[in-house]
């Protein structure tokens, strides 16, 4: 034990310099030459800088809505509901979300509501929704903004992000970018 104590302490110290000094500094340096200096990708909006990868709450009828969130999209933290698939209380909550959605979107048939719109994400900050989730909101937005449905359908198609290399992973839409593009339509 004794013969190992001093070498252990010194080795720890020199490794601290390498792993807690040199390594993070190197990565920080690389980040400086990356898009937006490693501070997270941002986009300019009418209210200033926003983060592309951090989802937001949209309540107004004239915007596409995000998924439910266990932390109300407060990115100071992050969190999920962690409800079990069999939890009766949780299932009642999902039922209620469906009802609320149907009331505000009377044009939509229940069997067209995709499951991502009525379930909370893992991070509580999911910036994306499925393509179907955007499509079923078109009728409501067209009515509240007085824009033609076909125009919005085209917008959703333009904003749809294809799988990586066309073959890997799901299709998706970034809600923030979609709504910024929506505001830009005139």
């Amino acid at each position, binding site marked *: 034990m004794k013969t190992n104590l001093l070498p252990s302490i010194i080795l720890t110290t020199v490794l601290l310099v390498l792993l807690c000094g040199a390594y993070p500094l190197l990565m920080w340096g690389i980040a400086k030459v990356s898009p937006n200096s490693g*501070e997270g990708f941002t986009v300019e909006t009418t209210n200033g800088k926003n983060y592309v990868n951090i989802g937001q709450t949209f309540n107004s009828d004239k915007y596409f809505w995000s998924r439910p969130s266990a932390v109300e999209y407060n990115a100071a933290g992050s969190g*999920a509901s962690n409800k079990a698939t069999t*939890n009766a209380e949780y299932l009642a909550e999902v039922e209620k979300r469906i009802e609320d959605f149907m009331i505000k979107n009377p044009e939509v048939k229940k069997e067209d509501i995709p*499951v991502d719109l009525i379930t909370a*994400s893992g991070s509580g900050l999911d910036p994306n929704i499925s393509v179907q989730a955007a499509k079923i909101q078109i009728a409501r937005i067209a009515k509240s903004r007085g824009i033609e449905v076909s125009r919005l359908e085209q917008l959703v198609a333009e904003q749809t992000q294809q799988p990586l290399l066309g073959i890997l*992973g799901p299709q998706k839409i970034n809600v923030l970018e979609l709504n910024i593009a929506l505001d830009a339509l005139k």
Partner: protein
Amino acid sequence: MNTEIIGIIVTFILAIGISIPLGKYIAKVYAGQSTFLDKVMNPLEKLFYKSSKINPEEGMDWKQHLVALLTINAVWFVMGFVLLLTQGALPFNPDNNPSMSPDLAFNTIISFLVNCNLQHYAGETGVTYLTQIWLMFLQFVSAATGMAAAITVFEAFKNKTTTLLGNFYVYFVKSITRILLPISIIVAAILIFQGTPMTFEGKDSITTIEGQQIEVSRGPAAAFIAIKHLGTNGGGFFGTNSAHPFENPTYLTNMTEMIAQLIIPLAMVFAFGYYINRKRFSWMMFGVMTLGFLCLAVPNVMMEANGNPNIAAMGVDNSIGAMEGKEVRIGAAASGFWSIVTTVISTGSVNSMHDSSMPLSGMNQLLAMMINCFYGGVGVGILNFFVFIVLAVFISGLMVGRTPELFGKKIEAKEMKIAMVIALIHPFLILSSTALGTAFPDMTRDTLNNPSFHGFSEILYEYTSSAANNGSGFEGLGDNTPWWNFSTGIILLMGRFLPIIGPVALAGFLAQKRYVPESAGTLATDTTTFGTIVLTVILIVAALAFFPVLTLGPIADFFTTTSL
């Protein structure tokens, strides 16, 4: 075939494709042969040894190995405990986060020391940038500790008869300088260019489109996330780990992080074969592990992609799968696959919330940790598997009436006792702690997030994850209480160091034995037959011990679903 499934298959094939040459490289590194990093790293390592007064040429027997390993771990424990208790007053704390309570600091330092990263705090509020960087240090060194321990087993079978198994410090330092650090730099760079933050600025205040004022947590995350996966640590920089859109911003980062956690455990299997020059034996191990892995992973992908039948019954479009606790950019299939990758490998990072997985997916996640050697954590996975190989050799030796031998070394009573104790300690730790947690409902009941059978599963999962040094959780559990912090802390220590001490001692005893040349009468250990026996032993010892408790938790939960 749909793109979500193709994504998983490509990820897995890439991981195997990288791990074969990496295994060859790892074997060369530990054997002291020349590799391409020599020019940079040789002088650096010399400097390390010289300043620390370590003689890299000095061989150590198995006891000296363990003493060195435990001493340096004790140093980290003391340093880390002090840092976490005082972090609030130390620099690099732009968000003014407080110091930890003693019980939380105790749990946190142990859980990072033992490569588990259970995390009873949330990264945004529970630690400072200084302690995040310190925890990242532990992610490097705890992984390197596991690798160094595994190499003693490699060394025991390389030499015919010896007491010396190489130098602990050399294996340890080389694991960092030659393997963990270089690959971390590559992984972190990919993450940075995909949008993961790497900044020392604190929280940012923004106004959303609808005029809401919110704060956005940031930090030096990319460097942390790279080693968290590569070293199979799994502790998240942010509270929700790799489900957080900063930790895992795109499908490409999801693939990268999945590959990063797979490659070293896989490569160690191949490295063993190269190191002792028995490549067929590596393929036998790889075959058994992969078969076991797929038996758990494929059902999970299917169950998560098929979705929650309770929600389907409400009449909505359930086609994209069980999305509660999952992210749209990753998808249900890749989340289901990740949930098994991270539990077989003892990473414990999550890209979806396991608490909201389908009941039998949850059971497979538990089984993956209960077996704990299909690939397994860096270094320790192969040590766990080694114990099962020793058992299988002994059992098959008895069946055919021959003296059990492994690579020309006789396996006798002493070795068998160690192997049996190590094989049984894992079920013992899990079952006894879960029983205790359930026996004192005042301590645990109010911390549960779900009622009924699933609530019991939350207790079972927490202790299984601790004993397997995994670090994932059914995260609904309110685990930052003195009960959870102390009880899991103790299980973590036992679940880490006993399965290292046992196999290293075993390797030491076997290495000293006289080498018996292999003959026609020797049991062949690199065949399908032997692989089948190993798998059977694993199923009997590890899995069957747990079926009663699984019946009370996830299986009962499953039958609740179908009755609705």
